[in-house]
């Protein structure tokens, strides 16, 4: 399981003659930071300033993650704790949508995006991310475990449903938030624009990295370096949020 990752990490520190050594080695012998300085040089030459790619990805990821957490939590609260007509069937549809991938809807999605005038904007990636269904599902399952007494007490004190949601529910479901954050982060951080973004200055870090990765032999060192940088971000995030995520997953089960 780990060997390919170890290989990926080691490659990033190998001098070029060691990457192309026969027989190939797993571990680096003379570690060097040359690949990273090569990468910096490459980035300096890129047509669009590289900081722009970083900004694009960070902007898309942050906006998408924050919006998703708020929208999905707001919808999860009534689904978990209220009684109203249509509740069951609405949730059923969300569960059904876990059972197919976005590939199924790629073509009509493009048409919807162009009707809405979102093609070639950040929003083409961000807005659909708000309604990612796994997030709503996990949040709703987690909220169901909250004791009703907590909500009843607030209601007796005269708090509105919105106030209850914001001041009582949200602070109590922090583990679930973090889970939504990391799942959504992973998707948006690795997004290449889903075919909706054409302008070079709007393209993502992932897209720019792929240009380097598939750039051939001369770029092998820089490719290993950029891959290491890209993967270290979600992994670090996971290290810090692991226990909260496991806590959320404990309530992830499907109860018919």
């Amino acid at each position, binding site marked *: 399981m*780990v060997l*390919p*990752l170890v*290989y*990926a990490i080691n490659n990033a520190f190998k001098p070029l003659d060691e*990457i192309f*050594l*026969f*027989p*190939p080695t797993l571990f680096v012998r003379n570690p060097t930071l040359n690949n990273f300085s090569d990468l910096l040089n490459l980035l300096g030459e890129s047509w669009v300033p590289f900081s722009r790619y970083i900004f694009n990805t960070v902007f898309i990821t942050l906006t998408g993650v924050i919006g998703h957490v708020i*929208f999905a939590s*707001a*919808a999860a609260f*009534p689904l978990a704790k*209220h009684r*109203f*007509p249509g509740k069951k069937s609405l949730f059923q*549809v969300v569960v*059904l*949508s*876990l*059972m*197919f991938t976005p*590939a*199924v*809807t*790629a*073509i*009509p*999605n493009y048409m*919807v995006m162009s009707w809405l005038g979102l093609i070639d904007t950040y929003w083409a990636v961000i807005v*659909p991310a*708000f*309604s990612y*269904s*796994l997030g*709503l599902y996990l949040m709703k399952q987690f909220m169901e475990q909250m004791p009703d007494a907590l909500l009843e007490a607030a209601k007796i004190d005269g708090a509105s*449903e*919105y106030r209850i949601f914001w001041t009582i529910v949200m602070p109590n479901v922090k583990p679930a938030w973090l889970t939504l954050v*990391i799942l959504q982060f992973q998707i948006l*951080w*690795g997004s290449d624009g889903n075919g909706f973004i054409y302008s070079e200055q709007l393209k993502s870090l992932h897209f720019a990295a792929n240009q380097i*990765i598939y750039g051939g032999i001369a770029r092998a060192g820089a490719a290993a370096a950029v*891959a290491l940088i*890209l*993967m270290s971000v*979600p*992994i670090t995030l996971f*290290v810090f949020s*692991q226990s909260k*995520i*496991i806590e*959320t*997953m*404990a309530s*992830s*089960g*499907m*109860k*018919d």
Partner: protein
Amino acid sequence: MSNWWSLKVSEIKKSKHSYVLLAPYMILFAVFTVLPVIMSMVLSFTYFNMLEFPKFIGWHNYSRLFLEDDIFLIAIKNTILFAVITGPVSYIACFVFAWIINELSPRLRAFMTLVFYAPSISGNVFFIWLMIFSGDRYGIMNGLLLKLGILMEPIQWLKEEQYILAIIIIVQLWLSLGTGFLAFIAGLQTVDRTLYEAGAVDGIRNRWQELWYITLPSMRPQLMFGAVIQITTSLAVSDVSIALAGFPSVNYAAETIVTHLIDYGTTRFEMGFASSIATVLFIIMLSTNLIVQKLLRKVGE
């Protein structure tokens, strides 16, 4: 009847706040998920090239898909092959690894969870397999086999039909310990400890009986959730195929339903035909999931 309606209407009015909270999410969900599924089904009965208005042609796309399109049959065959192997294997692997990890001390457990989960969150790091299975002698696989004297000359792993499928399956399995795996780890931690003691009194003799009669039924909800995740991913193989085998792959050896869909949708702009592929994929994914859900309800009964 009118009575029932007025009751419903008053109920709906009373739940105003619930609908307001739901609305932002549900509107987006309807626009970007529900509407596209319906549109895809409608478009699959038309000829549509993005320029002219769609023209209704009945079942023609489907008859073309199943009777005339040889490559689609390869794609179906490959997709089913991937799903039948990676689906169950990854599902069982998720559970077995979670089960083993569960016995460890918390610190070690956290570390092992990270190790197993890392590939699936590292984004496009699977490109590293391009280097492992590189066609020259600097690739790890060729280098190793050449050094051991098993091979006399390097193999073009990703360009020869008989190896491509196996390699994609390996990489897909490597990536497959994802959300389902985390759900199983969490599920195992929530199993009520006292059930094991009660089980011992009731005559459960070994770990296997404990697993079948206590652990699995206790975490049935997580098992069902994990199944949905693993089935859906195993039927949607495309990124790995495109990254490793190229697009299109040599002699379509690594064509899957999704890459076929991408081919017609984004290269040939035959949107009606591509929609019929999407609809077939949708039906396969949904029905497989629903059948497996039925089966899993029986675990431990």
